[in-house]
């Protein structure tokens, strides 16, 4: 069955592209001279981020440069994405410490539970979001790398200001 196509005759003013193009170009030139700027010139300029920003992890250290972590195993237990690998061990003084502590930043969903559960205030999320690597393996951060991070840590929850206002 042939399809009946009804061809509607429209006046030239409606079908011509000339007017539409000129309207668009007019808008472009208007914005060229308009002083109101909306684009942030990243990376030269940066937006400020919230103190509760949950970004790249960081392991805090004690005064003598050791990781605060005691390998209690709470963060791998609480982690909903299963991205923390922890193998506990014992050092020469008989202190419990992590032999292996790895966070897969790709797997991580940045929920912040690890920071919240940590009894030693060792693992923190940070106010940092710029991560790039040449390989997937590079996103598995080991203890050394987590300790070497210097960005400010996330202020997860301030008891004096529970709503973060």
């Amino acid at each position, binding site marked *: 069955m042939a399809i009946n196509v009804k061809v509607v005759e429209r006046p030239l003013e409606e079908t011509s592209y000339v007017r539409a193009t000129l309207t668009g170009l007019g808008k472009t030139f208007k914005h060229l001279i308009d002083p109101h700027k909306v684009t942030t010139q990243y990376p030269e300029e940066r937006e400020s981020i919230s103190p509760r920003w949950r970004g790249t992890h960081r392991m805090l250290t004690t005064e003598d440069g050791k990781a605060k972590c*005691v*390998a*209690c*195993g*709470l963060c791998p*237990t609480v982690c909903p994405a299963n991205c923390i690998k922890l193998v*506990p*061990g*014992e050092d020469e003084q*008989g*202190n*419990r410490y992590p032999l292996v502590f790895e966070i897969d930043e790709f797997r991580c969903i940045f929920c912040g539970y690890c920071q919240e559960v940590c*009894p*030693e205030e060792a693992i923190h999320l940070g106010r940092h979001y710029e991560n790039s690597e040449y390989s997937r393996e590079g996103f598995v951060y080991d203890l050394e790398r987590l300790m070497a991070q210097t960005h400010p840590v996330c202020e997860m929850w301030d008891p004096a200001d529970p709503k973060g206002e």
Partner: protein
Amino acid sequence: MADTPLVNLTIEGRPVAVAPGTTILEAAKTAGVLIPHYCYHPGLPVAGVCRMCLVEVEKFPKLAPSCATAVAEGQVVHVHSEKAREARKGVLEMLLINHPLDCPICDQAGECELQDYTYQEGRKDSRYREPKRFNAAEDFGGDVRYVQNRCILCTRCVRFMDDVAHDTVLNVSERGDRAFIGKFEGKDLTHAWAANVVDLCPVGALVSKDFLNKARAWELDRTASVCTGCSQGCNIIVETRDNTVMRLRPRSNESVNQFFMCDHGRGDYRRLNRRDRIEVPSILGASGHVTVDWDVALEAAARVIKGKRVFVLASPNLSNEALHLLSRIARRSGGAGAFRVPLGGEAPLPGAPDLALRADRAANATGAQLLGFTRHDAPLDLMQAGDALIVADHDLTEGDAASLSKAAVTIVIGSAMPANLPKADIVLPIANVVEEEGTLTNLRGRVQRFLQAKAAPGMARPSWYVLADLLGALGEKADYFVAGDAFGALAASEAAFAGLTYDSLGLRGLPVIDAARFAEAAR
């Protein structure tokens, strides 16, 4: 006992009837009420030192320690009344004065009774501001480390060593807030059952050096099983993580091991984790072993067995089901089976009746004998020239190797390759005791079930499954789909096991029909 009238009482509003002389704590358990306690343990004499089990009994002038108070007719007990809770809260606060609260680095965290009860009914904070007492951890010898700071002085360990192990090693040294568990001069926790103090310790004061920092309590998966360290057949819990056995702990069974398990049995987890396992079925070809499919391997095994007399060298650690199927394979060809039991020193636990680390270091020697296998120091002497030899998970000594040439063909059905075996024509991998289900018969003729705790490596299959398939390939009907089916066939055809069913065994086991003769042999 049946004509002794029961005592009726009410615990938390629930009527309970128990035998006279029962303590309130035990009576409460029957009513489904757990009274918090530290020093009380059903396997140890009552001490009444922790004051944690205080309950309110109507018409008593003051609170009563339920572990040391016998029930009386018409008693009304309140476990969770305001007064009792307040008292226990006080006890907990006192216990926590010097407790370091180092739960993040404590091995007991997650299975700690101090943690549990503090969450349940303790204060949320401490009112004490003074610095906590600190003492260094001490090595108690054996597998035990004592962390004094965490100790709550319940004295379970002291009572275990004195009254159950009859080896006085531990004591309570010093007095008052300086008190700690001390070791007598020149003595160490080297008793063969000493590691039980680690399980008995309700807190993390006594910890296993071997298990230290290896796993957290909440990461472990627990499975009921039976220890294969000796012929006692202690009931155990296999604790696994990531398909690896992390430790073995005792499971209470009044008729076998009460609440205990020996150090030899605990160390057995290493053998269960061994890495040099057979993972694929293979057939010896012109240029060494060739990996083949299960069907091919079983067909080949059936082909070489057919027409020959079969001699089975069966490990006395195999399950009853596997041994039954092996004996059927041997019997249908007019063959025989034998085994050797590895021997070791006997180490009794004097405070528990009929409990010892037995000299026979095999879990199912009784079962093997009941199923027609001959116990022999040189089992291969019973083999005739030209036999088809099946080595079923049995170890070979250098002495055995000389007799191996008598065999026309050698088939290995095992979890690992036996040492001193120059040549195996066909190799069939099977699961070990924590990787399959089945039953074992201990030296008193008690048939006990064990459950699967982890996955078998590679293509290995449960022993009863492999042997039933082999029987099938030989032309005998043996289509069992679960271990219980294989046990059903065993109970139906072996007189000694008659009347037992897989379900009726439960997890505590049942004795075989003429178990009395095994008990007699002991005396």
